[in-house]
């Protein structure tokens, strides 16, 4: 019930295309859904996050779509650039749960944007 399933494992998209990465969860108590971006040799960095009271959130070229009834959320990257090539992790947690604030991560998607 604590798992977050992420797909695809890898993705190759041409520059300007819109890569979409999907995640699904089981635990209905989750109320915070972040996405992390990791470049090789670096720690993951928070990219964008959403709470289940909204269905979509945009920050620049990055958009999270959230479907509470389906327990799914996805990351869309508009006008993708070669610099977006990285590994992306979705995650989920219970936002305020003293003593159990662990993030549950998906398995990651290696995204490659080709020129």
């Amino acid at each position, binding site marked *: 019930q604590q798992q977050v399933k992420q797909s695809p494992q890898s993705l190759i998209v041409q520059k300007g295309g819109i890569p979409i990465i999907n995640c699904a969860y089981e635990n209905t108590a989750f109320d915070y859904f972040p996405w992390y971006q990791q470049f090789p040799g670096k720690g993951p960095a928070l990219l964008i996050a959403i709470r289940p009271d909204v269905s979509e959130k945009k920050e620049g070229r990055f958009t999270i779509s959230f479907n509470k009834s389906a327990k799914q959320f996805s990351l869309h990257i508009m006008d993708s650039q070669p610099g977006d090539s990285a590994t992306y*992790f979705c995650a989920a947690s219970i936002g305020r749960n003293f003593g159990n604030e662990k993030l549950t991560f998906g398995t990651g998607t290696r995204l490659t944007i080709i020129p």
Partner: protein
Amino acid sequence: SQTIHQWPATLVQPVGSPLSLECTVEGTSNPNLYWYRQAAGRGLQLLFYSVGIGQISSEVPQNLSASRPQDRQFILSSKKLLLSDSGFYLCAWSRRGVGYGYTFGSGTRLTVV
């Protein structure tokens, strides 16, 4: 502002040698602290997390241990390294009682030879 420091950045150690990786957080108090391991091309595996000094929860039985001697210091150790301990080790912190806003350190690349 809060910052997280992790060192060393790279480490090559022989099998059977001890290990000590250190992580410190600045600019906050009472943080939750986490150690993750990432095998090459793989996901993030939570190894240990701590909600306070001396309070360590282990997620995966293994050859490693963690300690939190001070509020903002988290140490990952091993008495005898195995080849399988090779990987990318990441420290992270979050605010107590809040399950969002994880911030990761820059990581330590450990190669056991």
